[in-house]
């Protein structure tokens, strides 16, 4: 046989033939940057730059490790364990694990949503976030390097995020990293994936469910404990994935009975229900779960996933409230009734044969929940809603207390429950117990520790019942993304500093103070024309606190992304739009390319965008990854005092001058700068301290003189108001006399001369000598060598 000239099969061994998805050429919307779909080490250099300046700080919760069978190991005083890991690195690993949990939560949520929505709407459903949003997915563009056009495209971003989460999770296995900085880099990496996961989830639900698309003036919805009409059946949804409970609204609308029911939610599912239909209401954050359930307000509870009590079945069944668990992340030991007929599920729940069911079929949930609520409501019409059947019952409960203080030594806030009980026993006065309600998380740990089994949570709630019930404010429905047109308007004043800063109040409810403190802090900045952005639990807490005229911040300040406005972006996953807004400033205002260009964008934000995250009551793992993701993006975050329990912070040392430098692209030189911002993650103790820290961390090296003057004016005024004097470090931010607040210029020049030894020309009222560096209008800072080389060309 004659052999023809050609290729032998053997020679084809390295050729891969893929059958399935036809790879489409990515549209050339931007030149690809250096790090599209970055792996676990592609941005390590950027992280190390940050961590060199903002040194990781560890405050161990435990000084031992028991993650493997060679342990437990005593790591105290930075000793090494059996595997060789020291205490610092073990803590960095633990933080990385926390960030993996947070990233997985948002990304799994996104995966659930995207797969379900593609099934329902098809993968070609276009991503349309409204006419004013052309940069639809700033995080996905910057990190993954793609421009998603359809629901199906979101899968590509998800696949990248899932891969990276697994890789980082692998790194925390015994015997991997031995340097805490490298674990921090991995925590940052997985937290960046978290931000991508959040963006996927929120874009998917906005386009598929028809949520508001960047609309500043969304509806105001009732918020608080006392919002529901108890003459109607109440359906309470709780969790973070609205996919399962949305059909309840659909069913009630289809049957024309939406006005005969109350649909109210707890946590982010509440936000997202109101984004779907503003007839839904918001009970409150996670700390309102026991309040609402033990008051007997719901006729049925529908749970999905994340930040839901792990004793929900028990809490609901004690009150005779049937539970429908829907997410495979929280099956709760319940019977899977997916294949049951709807009427059989209703019968089992109403009759009490089952305390609860696991029903992961959204359409069935939509039908079952209203039917169960209606039947239970008929039975419960005479509910008291007051935690105790009578005053005598309350009195008897209080009488059991022996002031042993076990509750005080287990309460997250060490609330003085003993004092409240003692006063009530002696005089019948409940006021000291009532005060506790304003700060109580209703976590119930006190009851677990009480040797007399007192229902302490109920006692506290009942003691402040009138005020609790009067908490009925309004939340402006989450609007989703920030418009490109808004960014065009505020981009320059933010980068130049005329808008003194963006305060992003994000996170949970583990406040160190009464709930109203979040409003007091934010209003200080709204009055001073900062932009305030919020989401999640913080956003609904704001909606519960009214001023003397009965108005919440949402009713007093507009919802635009502009100076003196307050923007509620929505639920936890909507936080992506806050990071997205910072990225859009770099892109839309400064024309920096996004595609696979993370380090350049983060470097731009760190040096120019005076945005600060603020989590007054962080508690979840998601809060850890959200904050760490912001940190990698160059956004500092201030947390409340409970935030120290994350064990790690990023705190720079402002007195170490050699740590604070940039390359100035204009002059081509390495330039030493003022330490702005000097921390990337720091905890504050009080609201006064929070206000001052937020103001000082808005300062950026790139501020113009006018911008620096405005920022310093607020910083100095706030320091005088809350700290009693000029800040310790105000002078290091002064580059010339033009940076000084106008009204205080002479006074401050005098201080510079007398206390800091600066030379002043008093005739011209000019600084002659003293500042670390002078002001140059063309100053163009970067800490990234590649960016420096790119723009110096």
């Amino acid at each position, binding site marked *: 046989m004659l052999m023809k000239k050609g290729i032998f099969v053997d020679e084809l061994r390295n050729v891969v033939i893929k059958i399935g998805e036809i790879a489409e050429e990515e549209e050339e919307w931007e030149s690809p940057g250096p790090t599209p779909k970055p792996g676990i080490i592609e941005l390590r250099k950027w992280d190390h730059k940050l961590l060199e300046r903002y*040194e990781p*700080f*560890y*405050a*161990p*919760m*435990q*000084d*031992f490790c028991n993650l493997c069978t060679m342990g*437990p190991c*005593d790591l*105290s*005083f*930075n000793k090494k364990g059996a595997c060789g890991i020291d*205490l*610092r690195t073990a803590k960095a690993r633990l933080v990385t694990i926390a960030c993996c949990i947070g990233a997985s939560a948002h990304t799994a949520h996104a995966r659930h949503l995207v797969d379900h929505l593609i099934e329902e709407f098809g993968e070609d459903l276009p991503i349309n976030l409204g006419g004013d949003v052309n940069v639809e997915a700033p995080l996905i563009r910057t990190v993954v390097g793609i421009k998603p056009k359809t629901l199906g495209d979101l899968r590509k971003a998800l696949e990248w995020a899932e891969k990276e989460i697994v890789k980082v999770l692998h790194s925390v296995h015994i015997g991997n990293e031995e340097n805490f900085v490298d674990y921090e880099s991995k925590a940052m990496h997985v937290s960046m994936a978290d931000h991508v996961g959040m963006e996927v989830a929120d874009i998917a639900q906005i386009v598929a469910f028809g949520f508001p698309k960047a609309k500043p003036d969304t509806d105001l919805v009732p918020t608080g404990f006392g919002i529901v009409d108890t003459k109607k059946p109440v359906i309470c949804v709780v969790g973070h994935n609205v996919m399962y409970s949305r059909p309840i609204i659909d069913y009630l609308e289809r049957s024309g009975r939406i006005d005969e029911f109350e649909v109210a939610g707890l946590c982010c599912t509440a936000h997202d229900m109101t984004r779907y239909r503003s007839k839904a209401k918001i009970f409150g954050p996670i700390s309102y779960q026991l309040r609402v359930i033990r008051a007997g307000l719901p006729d049925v509870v529908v749970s999905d996933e994340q930040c839901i009590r792990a004793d929900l079945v028990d809490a609901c069944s004690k009150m005779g409230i049937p539970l429908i668990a829907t997410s495979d992340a929280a099956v709760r030991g319940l019977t899977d009734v997916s294949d049951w007929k709807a009427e059989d599920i209703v019968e089992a729940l109403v009759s009490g044969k089952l305390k609860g069911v696991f029903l992961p079929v959204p359409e069935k949930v939509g039908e079952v929940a209203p039917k169960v609520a209606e039947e239970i409501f008929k039975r419960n019409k005479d509910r008291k809603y007051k935690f105790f059947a009578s005053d005598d019952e309350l009195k008897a409960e209080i009488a059991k207390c022996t002031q042993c*203080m076990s509750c*005080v*030594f*287990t309460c*997250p*806030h*060490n609330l*003085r429950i003993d004092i409240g009980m003692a006063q009530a026993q002696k005089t019948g006065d409940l006021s000291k117990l009532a005060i506790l309600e304003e700060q109580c998380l209703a976590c119930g740990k006190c009851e677990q*520790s009480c040797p007399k089994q007192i229902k302490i949570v109920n006692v506290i709630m009942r003691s402040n019942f009138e005020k609790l019930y009067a908490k009925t404010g309004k939340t402006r429905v989450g609007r989703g993304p920030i418009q490109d047109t808004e960014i065009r308007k505020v981009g320059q004043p933010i980068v130049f500093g005329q808008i003194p800063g963006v305060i992003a109040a994000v996170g949970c409810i583990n406040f*160190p103070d009464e709930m109203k403190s979040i409003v007091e802090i934010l209003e200080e900045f709204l009055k001073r024309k900062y932009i305030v952005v919020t989401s999640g639990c913080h956003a609904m807490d704001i909606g519960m606190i009214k001023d003397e005229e009965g108005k919440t911040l949402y009713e007093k300040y507009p919802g635009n992304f502009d100076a003196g406005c307050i923007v509620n972006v929505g639920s936890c996953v909507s936080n992506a739009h806050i990071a997205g807004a910072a990225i859009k400033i770099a892109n839309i205002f400064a024309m920096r390319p996004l595609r696979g260009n993370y380090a350049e964008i983060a470097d731009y934000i760190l040096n120019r965008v005076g945005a600060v995250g603020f989590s007054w009551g962080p508690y979840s793992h998601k809060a850890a990854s959200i904050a760490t993701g912001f940190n990698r993006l160059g956004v500092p975050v201030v947390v409340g*005092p*409970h935030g*120290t*329990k994350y*064990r790690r*912070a990023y*705190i720079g*040392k402002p*007195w*170490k001058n050699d740590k604070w430098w940039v390359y100035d692209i204009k002059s081509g030189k390495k330039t030493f700068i003022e330490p702005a911002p000097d*921390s990337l993650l*720091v*905890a*504050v*103790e*009080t609201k*006064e*301290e929070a206000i*001052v*820290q937020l103001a*000082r961390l808005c300062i950026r090296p790139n501020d113009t003189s006018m911008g620096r003057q405005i920022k310093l004016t607020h910083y100095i005024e706030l*320091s005088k108001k*809350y*700290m*009693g*004097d000029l*800040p*310790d*470090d105000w002078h290091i931010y002064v580059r010339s006399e033009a940076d000084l607040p106008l009204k205080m210029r002479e006074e401050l020049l005098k201080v510079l001369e007398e206390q800091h030894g600066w030379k002043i020309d008093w005739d011209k009222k000019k600084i002659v000598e003293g500042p670390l560096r002078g002001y140059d209008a063309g100053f163009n800072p970067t800490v990234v060598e590649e960016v420096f080389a790119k723009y110096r060309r």
Partner: protein
Amino acid sequence: MISKEEKFPIAKRYNVADVQVSRDATAVKPVVVVNLIKKAKNPVLITGGSLLREEKLVEIAVKFYEKGIPVIATGGSSKPLIEKGVKPLFKTYTLHQITQFLLDEDFKPNGKSFDVVLFLGFLPYYLSRMLSALKHFSSITTIAIDEFYHPHAKFSFTNLTKDKEMHYAMLEEILSRI
């Protein structure tokens, strides 16, 4: 060496679940605190946000300052202190930041490193984390003189939560002897 009489019995930690394997603070009486301050080369008092709510603690901190102990005021505690004539070494930085600085041997704001640090007026869970950092990563002698027993300090008052007057009396006793 601290005598038996100078110690309190083993105390309940401010949060029963804040457990570690390393040494717990020695619960001490005021006389021990006095001796530690007297022997210190460069002691400092750090004050926290409770001073905004508890006037007596302001009075105590002012007296420490008047006795020559420098004060670092955090959490907004500088305001009432400055009103009473105290010039704190710092008033802007948080306890979190100050603790990070203390961990650095180069931190010498008054020319020397601090060897003994007293803490007054803090949320217990917040202070506890900072004490843990200082315990594991520094050789500083930390003394918690708040009303809760702090296991991660080197020395701490016992729990005085039941008897505020006794707490104040113990603070006054220190002041009267330094």
